[in-house]
């Protein structure tokens, strides 16, 4: 009832949060969306790893502060296993800047505060399921600023990499969170060409995925946070 994406099938979601009330709230909200299905819940990182392995969800909604294995630990463990990484959306109660940044660096594809509206949450889940990111450049730039990370003194890359004008355009849209298919439509290119541009951008920025590319681009002032 809330989106027009049902034609592309139901997105399967796992919910990992130690707070029962919060899990109930989010599940209750997502029950209202026809095209999102919560296939499993977990109360900590260890359980989360198990249900992800069993259910192979499209998107994982992940809390960061949990007992035993926390959200960061789960992300690191997923990356260490080398299996295809599910799209992970971090949900936080508070603006835990440092934790969120660590989660993004550990492979999360986006983050939201937990008291989202149904529309925001469903849109975010679909964007991640489509291969996009939800890094919210304006907020992330502030986050990098506050943590003192958005400075030119990162020793690993003394010279900002040379991107072609086309790659700049693509990077801007990647930073805005769009998946390749939508970038292709916007720039009137084929999906394959966009894919090649993205691969080249990742290579030049020295990062392994789109989220990292956005963070690096923000740090290097390669994209306008407000755009």
């Amino acid at each position, binding site marked *: 009832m809330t989106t027009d994406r049902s034609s592309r099938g139901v997105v399967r979601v796992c919910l990992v949060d130690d707070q029962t009330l919060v899990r109930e709230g989010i599940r209750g*909200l997502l029950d209202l969306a026809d095209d999102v299905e919560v296939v499993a819940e977990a109360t900590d990182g260890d359980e989360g790893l198990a249900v992800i392995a069993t259910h192979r969800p499209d998107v994982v909604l992940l809390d960061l502060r949990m007992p035993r294995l926390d959200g960061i630990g789960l992300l690191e463990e997923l990356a260490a296993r080398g299996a295809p990484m599910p799209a992970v959306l971090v949900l936080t109660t508070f603006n835990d800047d440092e934790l969120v940044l660590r989660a993004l660096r550990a492979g999360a594809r986006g983050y939201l505060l937990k008291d989202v509206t149904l529309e925001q949450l469903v849109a975010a889940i679909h964007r991640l399921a489509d291969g996009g990111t939800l890094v919210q450049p304006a907020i992330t730039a502030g986050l990098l600023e506050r943590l003192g990370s958005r400075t030119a003194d990162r020793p690993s890359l003394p010279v900002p990499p040379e991107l072609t004008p086309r790659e700049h355009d693509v990077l801007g849209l990647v930073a805005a969170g769009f998946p390749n298919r939508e970038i292709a439509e916007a720039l009137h290119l084929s999906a394959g060409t966009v894919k090649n541009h993205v691969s080249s951008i990742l290579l030049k920025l020295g990062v392994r995925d789109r989220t990292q590319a956005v963070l690096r681009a923000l740090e290097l002032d390669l994209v306008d946070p407000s755009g």
Partner: protein
Amino acid sequence: MTTIDTDRLTQSTAWLGIGTTLAVAIPVVVAQLAGDVHELLRSPVGWWTAYLVFVAVLVADVRGWAGSQTTTGQRIVVAIMAVSGLVAVAMSPAYGFSVVLPIVTATAATFVIGFRPALVLTAGQAVLIMLVYVAVPGVGVGDAVLQGVAWGGFMGFAVFTVEVGAREGRAREHLAVLNDELAETNARLARTNVELEEAQRQLAVQSRTAERLRISRDLHDLIGHQLTALSLQLEAAGHRGAGAATDNVERSRAIARDLLGDVRDVVGRLREDGAHDDLAAALRDAATVAGPMAVELEVDDDALPTDAERATTVLRVVQESVTNAVRHADARNLWIRVGEAGSGVVVEVRDDGRGSPDLVPGHGLTGMRERVEAVGGTVETSTSAGGGFHLRASLPGPARP
């Protein structure tokens, strides 16, 4: 100070004894030159031999008077003096000044072998002097006894006088030692007091920080999660359509979101800005030291870390440095600078204390180093005897995992 005076007086007494002894020979020399020495001395050769032995031993042991230990060598010296002195008396019963030698022996004995042995020696000398006079033809027993008692009394007087002086000296020395101990105890007490105040202040800062973090955690854990859940439930309720109540649900949802926003602000302030403001105040607190040491603190506010971990580390470095300076350095001045270094922060500490050629890091310095290294920083120290102590702790910028 008192010890040196006593020693000097003792030496003067010894030289006075030597002078008096030498004076004894003057009338004898005059008599020799005049050719009538036999009127004074029964045997000039015997007298001179005994006299010179006496003088030689006396001069040789002049340093021994001031010693506090009685050695066998000194006992022998006193014995030789007693024997040679009495032989000199025996060789010259007609020359009364010869008795000066036993008197000097009694005086020296009090210094060298102690009060009681000197008294015994004196009594022995008095008896022997008496016997010498008894043996002299023409001297009655009554006169001989009088001679013995008179000279015995004179020698006893010398022994007692020396002992009274010695006891007074010892009492003064004891008093001086007590005074020194008292001064040291006082200094230790002052240092302990400073440390105690320092510990109290640290405790106050720590409990303030702990209390703030506890409130922040409670807000986060207890209220944050409930409000989030409430907000999500109201969001769902709004979408399900609650008929006439839809408006109320939506307003409730807005209120819940606002409340959560407020809680977020408070938690954020407690965690960050609070830590920042508190850090500046806590640093000033840490640098306020009772006692004679002056602390100069220079803080670049822009350099102060905003995250709790590094802020606490900076505070610990400063607190530990102040404590160390108070406890070990004996410094008059302590300079502390907290400044920016690249994206990080550096704490530089310098004092004008006594320093140390080989620094042995105690628990404080080791703990400080561990804390700094835990946040990726380094601690360098340098010190030399009399050259004060210098410490530089460098912390990197905020953590970038």
